[in-house]
């Protein structure tokens, strides 16, 4: 698992989500829900850089999406939707920190950690979530290791390197339709590996 090149990813995302956002702006609740599901993990990770306690992170992220929903009409598409969300999240996290003295935050974070009886957990995650995150990463890693190389390339070039479908098609001299198919097939392979890992949480997901 490697960090994505932020500039490349932003370039791809700039054009992304426009139809989902347009539908959400016109009152389609499902369109907004799809955007929440798509971005909530990345927004939570961003907020957690500022806010040390998991329960506070969730409160702040909820606030981010509530504010985004209320202000959907103010999003003009001048940036990627994710960039807009990211800025809302930064403001919300900093606003939260201003309301809560740092010493109190650190005391609460320490108390939460000691309640977990798990000294290795240091970022506000519960042991259960940490274990599941590890299992998810392992399942994806093992799935990639057994997958046809052309599927791995298509998926990782898109998701990690930020290449567009047409970039990938050009790189491998294949039609864009082949790239669509490869990315989908790669996801299906990994989804089947993830299903048993995620089964305990099925009822809690969207």
């Amino acid at each position, binding site marked *: *698992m490697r*960090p*994505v090149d932020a500039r490349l990813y932003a370039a791809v995302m700039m*054009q*992304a*989500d426009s*139809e*989902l956002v347009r*539908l959400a*702006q016109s*009152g*389609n609740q*499902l*369109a907004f*829900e*799809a955007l*929440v*599901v*798509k971005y*909530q*993990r*990345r927004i*939570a990770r961003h907020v957690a850089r500022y806010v040390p306690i998991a329960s506070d992170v969730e409160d702040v*992220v*909820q606030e981010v999406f*509530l504010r*985004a*929903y*209320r*202000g959907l*009409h*103010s999003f003009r598409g001048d940036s990627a939707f994710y960039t807009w969300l990211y*800025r*809302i999240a930064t*403001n919300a996290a900093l606003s939260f920190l201003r309301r809560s003295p740092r010493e109190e935050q650190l005391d609460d974070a320490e108390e939460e950690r000691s309640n977990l009886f798990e000294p290795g957990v240091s970022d506000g995650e519960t042991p259960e*979530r940490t274990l*599941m*995150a590890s299992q*998810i*990463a392992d399942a*994806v890693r093992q799935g990639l290791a057994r997958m046809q190389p052309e599927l791995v390339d298509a*998926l*990782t070039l*898109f*998701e*990690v390197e930020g290449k567009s*479908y047409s970039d990938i098609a050009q790189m491998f001299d294949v039609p864009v339709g082949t790239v*669509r198919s490869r*990315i*989908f097939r790669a*996801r*299906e392979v*990994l*989804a089947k590996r*993830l299903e048993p890992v*995620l089964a305990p*949480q099925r009822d*809690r*997901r*969207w």
Partner: protein
Amino acid sequence: MSQKVSLLLDSQLDADDVAPVLHELGVDDALRDRFTIYGLVGDTLRGVNVPDDGFSKRIFARLHREGVKVEDGFDPLA
């Protein structure tokens, strides 16, 4: 339909197909699950492999409970 969900996630779906696929997502639990897992796969590859323990549902519940509406003139960055 799962392939269309994959394309929706990547913003590669034809604009005319987005609303029908969203409709299917609204009525098909297995399809919604696919959308969620495909998204998790991408985030995991980017190093953000956090399981969804109902986080999204709690956001939607709060939106509904508080009757949050899209408001003209509200700027969330202000």
